[in-house]
């Protein structure tokens, strides 16, 4: 229990830190770009929305910083992230709400697939050290050094432009109306396959290498030798003893590197013009839509925190030592 409470406390702190960073960034930055944007949209923007933006971006010079901070938290907790300029006058929260299912669907599923396959391959390579399996290492080293988005460019060139197997952009056939029909779902899967494959291929090598190294370390632990001495089957030794323990640090590194992976995969959405959070972040940067940018950062952080809580929970289930009382 203590383990989970500690972790929970940590996530509360991280959430607070992310919100606070978000609060201070526009206040520290030179210039007030948002003031200009408000001025440009004068008359079209409602008083409430304008007040929210002023609070979010620190344009109310007359109130104290502390009061601004409290007001800011009030807005965040109410889910008011301001008004988007690029998609004026849609509130930022609505823009994000429309985009996030796509990202979770694509990045989430692809990341889990990549982690699972990579961990399995990594345990195989780590277990069969000194055999042909080691020759997979240089290949995964190469893929780990390539930026995700560049791989996406190559994938589009080969599979969309040259071979024409998959569409180069978008998330579903625009002639279809989004409903829960087989046709629409099929189209989503068809459009999502190439981006998902690219994410899997570009991020899998990290899991392979990490798991391989952990397997090498764990394989020399005494309990693995004991398992072999007991004469249990190779399967049991590999999965029940070696991989079962090697996966523990793998899960914690999953939690820790999630922020990094999410960052990288968001860029994939840009290349594939996939209408998720990353794509909106890109348009926000291009259109200098600061409220949207900051809102997206906050939402991504919260999503990563949730994924971390899940990973922690999984870790707790996997490792009995964390369940120790006291």
């Amino acid at each position, binding site marked *: 229990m203590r383990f989970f409470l500690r972790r929970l406390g940590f996530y509360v702190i991280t959430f607070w830190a992310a919100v606070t960073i978000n609060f201070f960034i526009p206040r520290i930055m030179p210039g007030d770009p948002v003031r200009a944007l408000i001025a440009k949209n004068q008359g079209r923007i409602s008083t409430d929305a304008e007040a929210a933006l002023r609070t979010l971006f620190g344009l109310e010079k007359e109130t104290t910083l502390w009061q601004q901070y409290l007001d800011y938290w009030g807005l965040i907790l109410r889910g008011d992230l301001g008004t988007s300029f690029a998609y004026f006058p849609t509130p930022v929260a609505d823009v994000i709400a429309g985009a996030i299912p796509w990202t979770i669907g694509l990045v989430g599923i692809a990341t889990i697939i990549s982690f699972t396959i990579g961990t399995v391959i990594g345990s195989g390579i780590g277990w069969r050290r000194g055999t042909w399996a080691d020759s997979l290492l240089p290949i995964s080293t190469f893929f780990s050094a390539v930026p995700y988005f560049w791989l996406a460019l190559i994938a589009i060139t080969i599979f969309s432009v040259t071979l024409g197997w998959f569409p180069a952009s978008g998330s579903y056939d625009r002639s279809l109306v989004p409903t829960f029909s087989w046709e629409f779902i099929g189209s989503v899967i068809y459009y999502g396959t190439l981006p998902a494959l690219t994410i899997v291929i570009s991020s899998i090598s990290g899991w392979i290498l990490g798991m391989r190294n952990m397997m090498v370390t764990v394989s020399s632990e005494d*309990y693995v*030798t004991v398992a072999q001495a007991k004469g*249990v089957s190779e399967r049991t030794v590999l999965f*029940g003893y070696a991989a079962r*323990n090697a996966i523990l640090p793998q899960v914690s590194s999953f939690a820790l590197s999630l922020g990094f992976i999410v960052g990288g995969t968001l860029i994939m959405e840009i290349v594939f013009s996939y209408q998720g959070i990353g794509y909106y972040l890109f348009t926000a940067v291009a259109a200098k839509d600061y409220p949207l940018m900051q809102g997206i950062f906050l939402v991504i952080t919260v999503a990563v925190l949730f994924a971390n809580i899940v990973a922690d929970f999984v870790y707790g289930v996997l*490792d009995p030592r964390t369940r*120790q009382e006291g």
Partner: protein
Amino acid sequence: MTLTDPLDGAGATSLASPGHLQRLTPSADPVLEIRNLSVDYGYDDDPVHVLRQVSLTLGRGEVLGLAGESGCGKSTLAYAATRLLPPPGLITGGEVLFTDRSGVKTDLLRLNETQLRASRWQDMAIVFQGAMNSLNPVYRIGRQIADGIRAHEPKTTQKEALERAAEMLDLVGIAPDRLRSYPHELSGGMRQRVMIAMALALDPQVLIMDEPTTALDVVMQRQIVEQIAELRDRLGFSVIFITHDVSLLIEIADRIAIMYAGEIVEDAAALDVYHRPRHPYSSALLHSFPPLRGPRRELIGIPGSPPDLSKLGGGCPFRDRCEFAFDACSKVNPELVYPNVPGDDPRRSVACLRHDPAAVRAVGEEPLPVPAELSQT
């Protein structure tokens, strides 16, 4: 000193079983014979020869102690004989003959993977040094005992296996409800008992114990040693007990083999080694530990340090640290021979040129007599 010397009275030793001395008939009914076992360490061009042509016989029901300084190869011998030596260990020659209850001999080094897997734990079980890491931290101990049982008896259900595991725990004095404990919930001594229970689960004929008590405090050490002696009497398995603590071996072992630099230098009945060491190294080793009982004797460390195994030339590996070394010692590596002391137990052997005048003459040197320290009777 009120402690009595074990030899003074037959009933004076509480630990030694009544048949302590009678059991000393290893060659008649061997259960495990290691012959000329050689082990290298390193797959590259200049491997370290950690074991060089080691031969050792374990009699049925016997407790054989294997002693020597760290790095002498005693653990390596145990791991190589079970083929559990981790990379880059490499067995380069020899035989490990196991005789089962019906008298059939098999060479463990010639078994294929499936056969070896089937033989393991059933024929020979091993208790590792440091019980801290020997148990899988993520499984309950019941499951860990049970999976060994079920691997060899596929028809056993998990429930039956767990029942048997509970009996085994009971045997080593642990409450059966501990089956549901994880290793981190147990103390070091308990973990070592769990390991022993686990090793005995399939009623093996040979139990190899690699420094099973090193990580424990003295009280716990004694309890474990007594327990092993008691279980051996009850179940009749043979034990290879590996430790650097010779005085502990005197307590439990029927016979002791002393190893130095990857070779066995002396092999004799436990009390013979204790009272009448024939090899200068055995003698020195005995003087570097306080005796558990018997008269106090002067503690003397062994000067120098063990040789670098990668730089061994010909000659006796102990010569640089030996007070009885002479010219021949740098020319020929002594082999195990019957000690040159009249009236010695004919089953004992020693590898020292002081006892082997023939080998000394063979290299054209003049043999020297056995010094008084090495010929006590």
